[in-house]
Every structure is written in C-alpha cells, then in structure tokens.
C-alpha cells in the first residue's frame, strides 16, 4: 500500500517505540493533538502521556531537557514545531548536543533525535518555510538527515533513533502529504551517511536533498525530452556526507548542479561545491553551479514560488553548465 511521508514517519516512530521503551517523544502539541502535521498521531494513545509528552511552549526547554534525558539514558525524540523556530535552540545544539561526548571524554552521550519540518511551498505563514540546515551542518558532533521519500523517511527515523549520537532530522513539509510510495511494514533501517541514486544519468549530476529532490527529478524529466541525461542524487544525509556518492557521480558526468532552498550564500551547497572542486577538479567539464534561495528572507507565500528554485531554474543552470 502506498503511504505518504507523514504516515511513514509515524510508523517509524511507533515501531521504534515498540522496540525500545526508552524511546519517548516530546514537543509542543505532539500528544493529544498528534502534532500540527499529525506525524505523531495516535502515539500518545498507544504509549501514554509519559512517553508522548506535550510540553510547555519553550523550545530551549524541550531541547535542553532532551539532552538531559539522553544523558540519563533514555532516547528522546523531540519535535520543534517549525523550522523557523530552530534558531531558538541553536544554543543547545552548538554549545552542547554535538560537544558533550567529546567534552566529557565519552562519559556523556546524547542519543537524541531533534525532528523539525523543513522548507517551503505549502503556503504557510511567515517563518514557517525555512531551510536552516547550514546552521547544523557547520556544527561538529551532530548528524543531519533529511529524507525525500516515505521509504527513506521510515528507515531513517528508525536509524536516527537507534543512533548513539544526536541526529537532527528534517522533514520536508512540502512532501508530508505529496510524497507517496510503498513502504515495508516491518521495521527496517536506512543507513545514515548514504546517499540515494534517485535517477541515473550520464550528462550532468543534479545533487539535492529534501523536497528539491523532486524538483530535480522534474527537471531531469524535462531535460530528458531535450536529450539531456541528468543523474539525480538525493543526499538523504547531509552530515556525515556521502562523499563517495557525490564525487563518483560528479566525476562520471563531469558536470554538477546543486539545488536547494536555503539562502545560497554560506549554504550547504557551498560546502558541496567546494568539496567537489577540491577533489574532482580535473574531472569537471565546467564549474559546479548552485541553485538556491535568494540571500533574503523567504517572502510571504504568494511569492514563495519565486524564492524556492523551480525546475525552470534548475534547467537553466543545467544549460549554463552544459554550454560552459
């Protein structure tokens, strides 16, 4: 049966909780209400209010308490309701989550998952369509995961919960209900740190993550009609990066476009571009191009489609690379 991303993550959470009674969920409205996107629907009913916990409206409290719960020995999965409220928790993320293992010489470990929606294009209010991954990928000691299919979403949430280190788990909200696919019923793990070849191609590599993977697939379809064979790489994990997958695709096609939603300057695409040039320069036929959000705040939703790159922009970049 085909299910969507919401159901897939819900299933993954449920099975992880069934498998390990140390796993607990906390966040704003995750309990009775099942989360504003219904990702945690039904879980409080099944596991009780001590394992699916509605918290006060205090993001630092949610994340800080999760750090404590993790050090205590539990496996907290906390939710920050929207990407736009993640800046409030960067203090815990930067100063603690990724450092405690090292600071304590391995004595304190922080096996927690921080879930948050990601990205735009659902006509959401201001501050609800952000793509803040670069603030996390620059931060040592954490892992950053972002699935783009239901199958990966389920396998990655299970892997994230089982991971002995802190994982930031982004959920592309444009895909919550739009991405559908077959998902095995049993629990399974999708490995963290491994990219997915979303489409094979030979002329150019489109590297992307989250909802933009689908934009790249759309672009690849259209390019195909023009006789251009585009490969699409879905990173799935941003940290640690699957460097092999990135470089081998780049070296195979010799041409790369990276597409993402965040303000482009200082984005994770910059890191990718730098890495590819550093390591595969001689195999490149043209400079790697980045297609990202503009370096301004995401406008209110009537203009968001002019902010988030569309297939048109990806195709334009591809043609520029091909005609270099």
């Amino acid at each position, binding site marked *: 049966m085909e299910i969507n991303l919401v159901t897939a993550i819900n299933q993954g959470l449920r099975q992880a909780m069934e498998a390990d009674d140390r796993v607990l969920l906390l966040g704003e409205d995750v*309990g009775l209400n099942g989360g504003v996107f219904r990702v945690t629907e039904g879980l409080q009913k099944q596991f009780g209010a001590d394992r699916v916990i509605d918290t006060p409206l205090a993001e630092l409290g949610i994340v800080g308490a999760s750090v404590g719960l993790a050090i205590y020995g539990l496996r907290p999965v906390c939710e920050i309701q929207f990407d736009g409220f993640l800046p409030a928790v960067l203090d815990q993320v930067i100063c603690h989550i990724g450092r405690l293992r090292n600071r304590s010489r391995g004595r304190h470990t922080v096996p927690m998952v921080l879930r948050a929606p990601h990205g735009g294009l659902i006509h959401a209010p201001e*501050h609800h369509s952000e793509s803040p991954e670069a603030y996390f990928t620059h931060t040592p000691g954490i892992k950053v995961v972002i699935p783009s299919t239901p199958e990966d979403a389920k396998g990655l949430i299970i892997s994230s919960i089982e991971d002995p280190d802190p994982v930031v788990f982004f959920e592309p909200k444009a895909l919550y209900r739009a991405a559908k696919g077959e998902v095995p019923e049993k629990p399974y793990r999708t490995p963290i740190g491994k990219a997915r070849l979303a489409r094979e191609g030979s002329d150019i590599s489109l590297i992307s993550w989250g909802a933009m993977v689908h934009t790249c697939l759309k672009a690849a379809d259209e390019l195909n009609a023009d006789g251009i064979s585009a490969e699409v790489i879905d990173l799935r994990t941003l940290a640690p990066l699957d460097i092999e997958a990135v470089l081998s695709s780049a070296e195979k096609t010799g041409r790369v476009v990276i597409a993402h939603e965040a303000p482009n*300057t200082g984005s994770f695409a910059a890191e990718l571009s730098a890495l590819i040039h550093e390591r595969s320069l001689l195999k490149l036929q043209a400079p790697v191009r980045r297609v990202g959000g503009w370096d301004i705040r995401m406008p209110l*939703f*009537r203009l968001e489609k002019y902010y988030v790159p569309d297939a048109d922009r990806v195709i334009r970049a591809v043609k520029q690379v091909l005609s270099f």
Partner: protein
Amino acid sequence: MPLKTLDQCSVERLEILAPDGSVDEALDPRLPRETLLHMYRKMVEIRVFDEKAFKLQRQGRLGTYPQILGQEATQIVPALCLKPKDWLVPTYRGQGAYFARGMQLRHSLLYWGGDDRGVKFPEGNNDMIFSIPVGTHLTQVAGLAWGAKLRKDPSVALTYLGDGTSSKGDFHEALTFAGQFKLPAIYIIENNHWAISVPRERQSASKTLAQKAWGYGAFGLQVDGNDALAVHRAVSEAVARARRGEGPSVLECETYRLGHHTTADDASRYRSPEEVEAWRKKDPVLRLKLYLQAKKLWDEAQESSLLREAEAMVQEEIAAYESTPPPNPLNMFADNYASAPWHLIEQRAELEELLKGKQSRREVFELPPAEGRFP
C-alpha cells in the same frame, strides 16, 4: 520563629463588569460616553471582520488566519489607552489591536493572504510589526521602552503575549531588563487558556501568570479579560505608572479563544464543546452591550445600524484586498539593506530574467510595477 520572612506578595484579580452586565460601582472607571461607544464599535467591527475572514479562508480566499473570537476586549481596549506615539507591539493574533489604532483591515487580509504589502500601519503611529516566533519581541519591547526612557520621551511601550508564550525564556530576560531598568513597558499576557492544544494548566504550574511579575520587581495583576472596563482600568493605570517612571507591569488578562488556534487547526481534537460553551456565556462584546444598555447608551436600533455599517466596512476591506493587484516578485528584493549589495543586485537581475522567460512562455502574465526601495 524559625524562618525570617523577607518579602510577601499577593496576586489579585480585577473584575468590574460581570457577565450579566452588572457592574461593581466602586470600581467602574466611568468612562466617557464616546470612549465607551467607540470601544464597543471597534469590538463589534473586529468581530464581524473575524467571522468574515474565517469564512474567506474556508472558501480558499485567504491563507492561514488566526481568529480572535472571544478576545475582543483584550484586543481592542488596551490600544485605546495609548497615544499614537506610544509603541504597540501585538502578537500574530493581533489584528484587533492594530485595528483599534487605525490599521485598515485590508492589510491584515493581505498579510494572511501571503502578501508582504499587508505590513502597513498608519503614518504617525508607533506600531511595530509582530513576531511569528512567539515571544521574540518581548526583549525588543523592553528596548523600545528603554529608548523612550533614555530620551526622556513620555511614551510607553505596550505589548502582548499569549499564555503559552509566557513559558519562553524571552519573557524572563525581557522582564528582567524591564524591572531592572524600570522601563515604561506594559506586558499584557492574553491568557486565552490555550496554546494550540496545550491548556493553560499544562503550560506552567504557577497558579497565575500574573504572579510571575513578582520575580522581576514588576507590577502584576490578573484581570478579567472579557471585561472591557477592567481591562481599560488596569491598562490605563499601568500606562500611568509607566509614564510616571514607576516601571513595568504584567497584566494577565484572562479570556478565552473561542475559535480554533488558526484555520489550520481543529480544536475539537483537544477540547470539549462544553468548555467552549461555558466561555461563550462570558462573551466580552455582549457584556459591554448589556452595560451600555443599562446605562441607556445603547439600543437595538443603534445595534443594527452598527452591524450594518460594520458589515459594509468589512466588505469594503475585503474588496480592497481582493482587488489588490498581485505583488511583483521583484518586491522581495526591496528594503533588505539601506543600499543593496552586489549579490542582491545580481540575484534580482537573475529573477528579472527568469520572470521574462516565464512571461515569454506565458507562465506569468504582465506584472505590476515593482514596489519598495531598491537599492
């Protein structure tokens, strides 16, 4: 005695006008007729608007919309206790407060319709845009009040926060500053009993939210927030104290969110119809009407003409909203910096080119002229 008592505090509640319209004569601020009628008119107007906006959303003519149904007194009254140069900083559930200060409701519709041009306040007012990450404005409001104090400007700064938002660390830091520097700031906690699906009693084990003021050397009071007279009195006194240099106030106005959290929410998932019904009986608008009627300031004829006028006004605002030409996508590049840096010039040019391509492919039709300052 084993222990030495260092300080004592009691938290009190102000109620003047009961749900049945009866009034505590000793406390009645005896507001002038015009003030009362203006207050009532604004409360009715915003209620009419609120209902229409909700319907617009349900018809797909508006984005997410946060209703204020039931909170008309806390929304309208405080703004009426201010001067235009006083700073007003509502929350996202604040169209009533802005409206009371003269904002045209079309701008609220534009904003919630996803159009940045909805951020527009009357010239001359010190209205500040709300923040979406809740509570992040609270320290800023301390700064606004501080500015006034440092410049010996008699203005005060009045802001709102929800019961849920009182849990944010920003509240603590803002009140610490406001208390420490005796800032002319008024923090209205609009306790509408819910933070999305989390009820007030699961938000904090503090018996009241007002009593938190004690921990900052600030004045604290709980107010019946469905009682326009109590809100008026409490806010006016807080403003007066602030102007006299006596520092900040925390006014917990107890009210109730009769609607969903926003149109994206379904409140029936987490609360009982009985609870909502009980609060409908404490309606702030009806209550003020009963008071006006008892004072012979209002009759049913006036009521129906007010309703008619309000409907007409709201229709006009909706029409203005819906006839606003779409924004030019290039607008987003305006007003990012006082003068645009090279990369924004490049990026804007790129968007311009993309738009031309879309126009030539007929994916986008003619665009209105770009607005805003660029560079």
